[in-house]
């Protein structure tokens, strides 16, 4: 089992990789860079990755965290993969709507809905 660091938990459902963000607050650059590097390692492990990032543990995120997600999305797309987001609490979803990033990302209520979307 590959260790991707303390900030994420990685699991697999068939061909789909689920990354759960473990921090309640994703605010400052130090934390964000560690998370980004961990997720980039996951993405680098295979081309055409089908990736879900779960925000079930996350209560706060900053605009810098949004920037991190944009960079991750770009890396996933460049490797021929697809990224979906899940479990965004209502206040965090509101941030995506205010910044219009709800149109840039596929967002689902939970992991099951995101998993089903890969199969549809």
């Amino acid at each position: 089992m590959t260790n991707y660091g303390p900030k994420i938990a990685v699991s697999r459902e068939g061909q789909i990789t689920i990354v759960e963000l473990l921090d309640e607050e994703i605010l400052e650059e130090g934390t964000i860079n560690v998370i980004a590097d961990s997720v980039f390692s996951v993405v680098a492990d295979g081309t055409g990755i089908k990736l879900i990032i779960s925000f079930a543990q996350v209560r706060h995120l900053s605009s810098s965290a949004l920037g991190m997600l944009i960079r991750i999305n770009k890396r996933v797309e460049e490797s021929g993969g697809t990224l979906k987001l899940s479990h965004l609490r209502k206040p965090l979803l509101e941030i995506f709507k205010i910044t219009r990033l709800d149109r840039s990302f596929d967002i689902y209520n939970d992991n099951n809905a995101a998993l089903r979307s890969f199969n549809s």
Partner: protein
Amino acid sequence: MPSDTYQEIEISSSFSQARQAEQTIVTAAENHGYVESDLFALQLSLEEALSNAIRHGNRQDSQKIINIRYHVSQERIDIYVADEGTGFDPTNVPDPTADENLENPHGRGIMLMRAYMNLVEYNQEGNVVHIVKLNPKSTKSSCKNHE
């Protein structure tokens, strides 16, 4: 109900010190009866204001200081964040929601502050930001200049 809280804090250009300052102010707001959604908005806006002060204002120079003055009452919260930079023109910031900017990883901080606070204004130089959060539960709150 507690009496109004007036405080002035100085921090270095450190993200961890910024986190502590945020927590102090959010706790003060909670003690004055602001609800969870207000606290969320306050923490987000403070995070953006302080990150901008550290990253853009003070260029992450650990020798440079950020001054934070805040006043918390039941009616409103006023916060002034001052950095030691030369300032900027806040009217000249690209719209992060424009199609051509959506893939830009930066540039959303001010927009989020404006979305979550009742007032966001800069001094003429652009190195001091004043943010105001009114308590929607209070009948006395208004955005008229408090200081």
